């Protein structure tokens, strides 16, 4: 006891230090414990050795980097949280909706101008604003025989400078060779259409006698506003956007390409364009629908009636892959971005439909873009279709699957002639409530499936308040031999 009293200070400090060390050791040991578990489910597990999968699971507080190499799952815990904005910028094999490259995002756009037989009228619009106000606007209505399509692409990125932040928008737009007959267009949409330029609406005060002063400025400069395709009966604009939506633009290595994509049927020569220089957006608001930036024609293709643009993809080796769909077939054309030459072409027929009816135009698509190809998933009604296409040295390779149902994968890629997908499955009957990701390799001759079980289900059931919730990010699927 005397010795204890004599050395109480050192002993106490030693005991506290030891306790801290032991507890730290327990936590460090926890960090080394694997979070993800790999279970082969069916097929030849040796096939797993042919692919590599990397990704990160985490939230803003912590993360686990993992990789599947040579059939073995490696993982490393990090107490560093993820920069989620950065997660979306990095290349991945995950579902692709808006073309992007680095910090830049690309959005294709289309515009119209009257081409022939234009006849202009003005119409004042008055809307009751309630109380003592009215909303007043002017529409410049153009009835015409035909309209011309303009196409382009917007490029935007976020900036942060000097404590302020915002978005920067640039634009490139060009006049296309597509001219649509207004009568046919109205028939296609099933309603009579016109072109309209709107002034915007002004709030006016109503005098005691019920009158109000119309602003003189409402009609000024109206001819410089953008044209909208308009349904005068329903008094609203009609969208021209086609089936490819954002996927009609593509970018790789700083080069941006786009193809006009509109909803109405048209027949003729389609063109793929390359943006050589972007212009400031709105810089030429005085001359709407005129060319902006600098755009050159890269390649042309034949557009037959009933066919639609489904996507344009910029691939390595200056190759452009254009995907078109007809009623029951998909056509893939490969072009050289440098010479415009068509390098290869594939046409795939749809399988017999379960419901006896098949129309690709009515099927929604999801796409997964990789540097040398694309995997497309289309679904509509009871019909499902999945195709993988890669382009190497000007040659197209494809694999078509006809799934009987479809859970859209988180990530997918075409690797060495097989479609590799990474799909989230939630198995509620597991003893431990884990989400399993199913990694599936489907080739012409062999297939394999394995599960990667993750604990993120627990995060999702505890979403109280602003609790962080771990997710999978930056999933990249590659072949073993690929760089």
């Amino acid at each position, binding site marked *: 006891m005397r010795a204890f*009293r*004599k*050395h*109480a*200070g*050192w002993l*106490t*400090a030693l*005991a*506290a*230090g030891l*306790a*801290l060390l032991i*507890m*730290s050791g*327990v*936590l460090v040991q*926890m*960090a080394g*414990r694997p*979070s993800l578990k790999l279970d082969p489910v069916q097929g030849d597990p040796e096939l797993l050795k042919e692919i590599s999968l990397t990704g990160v699971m985490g*939230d803003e*507080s*912590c993360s686990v980097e993992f990789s599947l190499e040579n059939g073995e799952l490696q993982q490393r*815990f990090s*107490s*560093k*949280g993820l920069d989620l904005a950065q997660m979306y910028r990095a290349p991945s094999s995950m579902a692709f909706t808006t073309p992007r490259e680095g910090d830049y995002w690309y959005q294709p756009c289309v515009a119209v101008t009257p081409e022939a037989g234009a006849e202009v009228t003005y119409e004042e619009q008055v809307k009751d604003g309630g109380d003592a106000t009215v909303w007043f606007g002017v529409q410049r209505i153009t009835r015409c025989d035909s309209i011309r399509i303009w196409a382009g692409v917007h490029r935007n990125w976020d900036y942060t400078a000097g404590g302020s932040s915002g978005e920067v928008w640039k634009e490139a737009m060009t006049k296309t060779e597509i001219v649509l007959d207004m009568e046919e267009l109205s028939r296609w949409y099933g309603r009579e259409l016109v072109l309209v330029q709107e002034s915007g609406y002004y709030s006016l005060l109503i005098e005691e006698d019920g009158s109000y002063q119309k602003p003189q400025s409402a009609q000024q400069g109206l001819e410089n506003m953008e044209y909208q395709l308009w349904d005068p009966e329903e008094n609203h604009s009609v969208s021209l956007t086609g089936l490819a939506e954002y996927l009609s633009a593509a970018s790789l290595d700083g080069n941006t390409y786009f193809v006009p994509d509109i909803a109405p049927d048209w027949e003729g020569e389609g063109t793929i364009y390359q943006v050589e220089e972007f212009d400031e957006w709105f810089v030429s608001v005085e001359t709407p629908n005129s060319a902006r930036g600098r755009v050159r024609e890269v390649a042309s293709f034949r557009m037959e009636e009933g066919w639609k643009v489904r996507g344009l993809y910029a691939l390595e080796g200056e190759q452009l892959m254009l995907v078109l769909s007809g009623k029951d077939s998909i056509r893939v054309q490969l072009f050289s971005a440098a010479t415009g030459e068509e390098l290869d072409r594939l046409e795939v027929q749809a399988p017999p439909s379960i419901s006896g009816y098949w129309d690709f135009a009515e099927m929604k698509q999801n796409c997964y873009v990789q540097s040398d190809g694309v995997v497309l998933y289309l679904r509509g009604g009871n019909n499902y279709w999945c195709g993988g296409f890669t382009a190497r040295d000007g040659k197209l390779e494809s694999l078509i699957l006809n799934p009987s149902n479809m859970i859209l994968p988180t990530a997918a890629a075409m690797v060495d002639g097989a479609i590799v997908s990474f799909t989230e499955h939630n198995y509620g009957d597991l003893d*431990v*409530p*884990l989400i399993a990701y199913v990694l599936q390799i489907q080739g012409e001759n062999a297939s394999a499936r394995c599960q990667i079980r993750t*604990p993120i289900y*627990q*995060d999702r*059931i*505890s*979403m*109280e*308040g602003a*609790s*962080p919730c771990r997710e999978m990010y930056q999933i990249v699927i590659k072949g073993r031999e690929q760089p």
Partner: protein
Amino acid sequence: MKRFSMLYCREFSFRVWQVWLLGLAALGSQPLLFSFSELWSGRRFEQAYDGSGAPAAAVILVGLAVGWMVYSTLRDFRGGIDTLLTLPARRGWIYLAKMAAFASMLLVLWAGLLGGVFVSYGWYLLQIGTRAGMWPMENGLLLAFCRSGVLRLLFPPDVSGIFSNLLMLTILAVGSCYASFSIAAKRVWGLIPLGIAGLCWVQVFRARLGNAVDSFPAPWWQLGLLAATVFLVVHSLWIVRKADF
């Protein structure tokens, strides 16, 4: 070194039971207060911990430790300081021995608080194990230490956090002693460096909790805290050497 050890043991002998009591209070109060928090399906450990009285108890215990350090230094001035200064050891060693004793006290408090969290987690596992539809988070304790600002203060998951923790504890010991010296000498301007150190401490504390620090980014406050610590140590050593109380 022998003299330093002797001085350290002398300093510690004045507060051995208080230190053990503080450590035990930290160890016991955390699970006790945590046990009152409500648990329901999906409520994570860190949410239940942050919502319980345990973090407040930890703050009170740290406050008690600081108060005790100020009190025990002031007690040296009640007729004993001359004896202390005439001990056969360098005056700098006397000061450093005092700091080491304070640091030991804070180390015990830290271990007690961290141990309390471990015990609380054990209690949490026991509780949710008996309820239907509730699962423990896999590696839940580690995730809690990553996700909760309060728990990250107790167990920093990275080197900079450990450095920050040591700095925050050091300045508590150094600042308490400096405050006592200033009170004893009625040195009003001594409040200025103390105030600056306090401001830096609070900002680092806020940054560690995950709250935004408006004016300067957290590393600048850390540097400020380091500079304040160096100044307080150097000035305290100068005061002790000159016996300028």
